[in-house]
């Protein structure tokens, strides 16, 4: 008599990213159909539109890549938008041309482009490392640490030039964010971090900490050091975003990046990253980002009254996550 083996290894479940991808297709389809009905043209089959769909979200997308890792560790980063603002101001002030009567540092104009790049990365890194150190060593909730940084960094950006915008960058600085460069940079960053999260020690430890920080610590992961690294990298990515944003717009202003943090978080969560930590992927976040891009372009495409757009956007954020949660629950329950 032998016992029957009924419990077989499960076939790999459909990855959650698939759901997000289907959601993206669905939303695009809706705009496509409405487009033919109301505007009489295609939404999707328009090269220029496809470009702007990605272009307009790729800067926040870069932030979202950093935020994704932070959320996977079980944390959150509310400071990224403000860090973008402060970093843009500071970096841009080292990228001004000499024939600008009001340069922030008249003695430091026409510097090689590497200077503002280094400044931006460093500023972002420092802000992120400060977040990480606070969270890791004082054990205060990430929500609070990064809220404090959010307020403080916005203060810095307003104080830096007493609110004056910083404009007139050198040509080489202006080239960073020109054309489709933001998209290319996003893709490079996303691929790098996809690899890092899936195939390296860095990724494994990031997921482990988000899943059970105590277990990770007992198992010998240097949780504190790792958290500082994760937040520092997220800050550096915010710095990168500031670089591209100010270059693309040829100006840096104290109000830059307001609300970017919430958009970035929403992108990640729509892409299936769990706010409880331990679960999520860069691929999901990228898809969440594209959903944002499609929505923004779709609104303008359909000439929806600006007054309705925010309401609809709020609803779409919620519906996207509701749909994802529902699908995952159904899958877990039945199959």
């Amino acid at each position, binding site marked *: 008599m032998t016992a029957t083996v009924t419990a077989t290894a499960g076939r790999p479940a459909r990855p959650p990213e698939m759901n997000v991808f289907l959601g993206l297709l669905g939303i695009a389809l809706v705009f496509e159909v409405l487009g033919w009905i109301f505007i009489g*043209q295609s939404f999707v089959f328009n090269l220029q539109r496809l470009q702007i769909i990605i272009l307009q979200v790729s800067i926040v997308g870069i932030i979202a890549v950093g935020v994704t890792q932070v959320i996977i560790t079980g944390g959150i980063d509310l400071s990224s938008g403000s860090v973008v603002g402060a970093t843009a101001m500071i970096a841009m002030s080292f990228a001004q041309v000499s024939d600008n009567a009001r340069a922030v540092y008249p003695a430091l104009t026409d510097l090689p482009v590497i200077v503002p790049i280094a400044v931006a990365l460093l500023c972002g890194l420092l802000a992120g490392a400060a977040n990480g150190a606070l969270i890791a060593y004082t054990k205060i909730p990430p929500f609070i640490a990064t809220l404090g940084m959010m307020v403080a960094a916005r203060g810095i950006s*307003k104080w830096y030039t*007493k*609110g004056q915008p910083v404009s007139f960058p050198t040509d080489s600085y202006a080239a960073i964010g020109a054309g489709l460069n933001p998209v290319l940079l996003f893709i490079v960053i996303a691929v790098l971090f996809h690899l890092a999260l899936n195939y390296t020690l860095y990724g494994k430890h990031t997921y482990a900490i988000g899943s059970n920080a105590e277990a990770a610590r007992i198992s010998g992961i240097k949780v504190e050091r790792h958290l500082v690294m994760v937040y520092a990298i997220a800050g550096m990515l915010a710095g990168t975003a500031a670089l591209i944003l100010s270059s693309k717009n040829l*100006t840096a202003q*104290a109000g830059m990046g307001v609300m970017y943090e919430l958009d970035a978080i929403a992108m990640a969560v729509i892409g299936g990253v769990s706010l409880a930590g331990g679960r999520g992927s860069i691929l999901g976040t990228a898809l969440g980002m594209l959903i944002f891009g499609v929505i923004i*372009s779709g609104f303008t495409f359909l000439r929806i009254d*600006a007054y309705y757009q925010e309401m609809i956007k709020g609803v779409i954020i919620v519906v996207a996550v509701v749909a994802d949660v529902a699908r995952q629950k159904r899958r877990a329950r039945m199959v």
Partner: protein
Amino acid sequence: ENIGVSMALFDDNFLTVLRNGMTDYAGTLEGVDVQVEDAGNDVGKQLDQVKNFIASGVDAIVVNPVDTSATQAISDAAAAAGVPLVYVNREPVNVDSLPDNQAFVASNEKDSGTLETLEVCRLLKEAGKTEANILVIMGELSNQAAVVRTQDIHDVIATPDCAFMKIVDQQTSNWNRDQAANLMTNWLSSGVAFDAVIANNDESAIGAIQSMKAAGIDMASVVVGGVDATQDALAAMAAGDLDVTVFQDAAGQGQGALDAALKLARGEAVEQKVYIPFQLVTPANMADFMAKN
């Protein structure tokens, strides 16, 4: 003397010039101490700041109202404490019932959008258009200046003279250059045909210009208007990209307000209503404004 100043918000380019005009001027005066607060575009916070000033015993208060219809409560608070008050830049709703020790130095926001749109209308006519499509880029929808300036555009178009203009779409950029640039690219990708872009502020106009240039559009064929006459805007005008903007003497307003506040604090008489007009800026007269904002 101690003067408390509550600004509507700090991260606004125009108000920054006004604020700096005020503080720079205070620096040249003996014994005048100016404390500037940021109301963060929050009417509630602004009222509380005024009360904090009163509690700290300042000699006079300057308010740049977040919302001109919220000035009644502010006037009441200052009047109750007997502290002189001067409104700056935005005309308060209770302008006709101000107590004796209150005054205002302001511009009429209705003028800015009207001047801008009229000039765009003129330029389009000059170019021989009999039908013109307009794209409107609004500022933040919750902001009063955006609401008024947008209304101005509609009002001007409603006049028979400019009725040949037709708004094909109006969207918001939240005052923001990046969002305006994305917005314009989205419009371009939809194949919207247009002859002019009227923006609520220069930043938005510049964003639209950057996108149009990236798309290879000849800027001579499009009329673009903004408001503020910022340095960036004047540079864009010099490059032939921006056609119209509107100047407001921010620094002058700041100085004037501070002067009025000081006089009130010393019990001297002041003119209660000082209107500072908006001025149209075009390539023809832009040189006059280069050093101003």
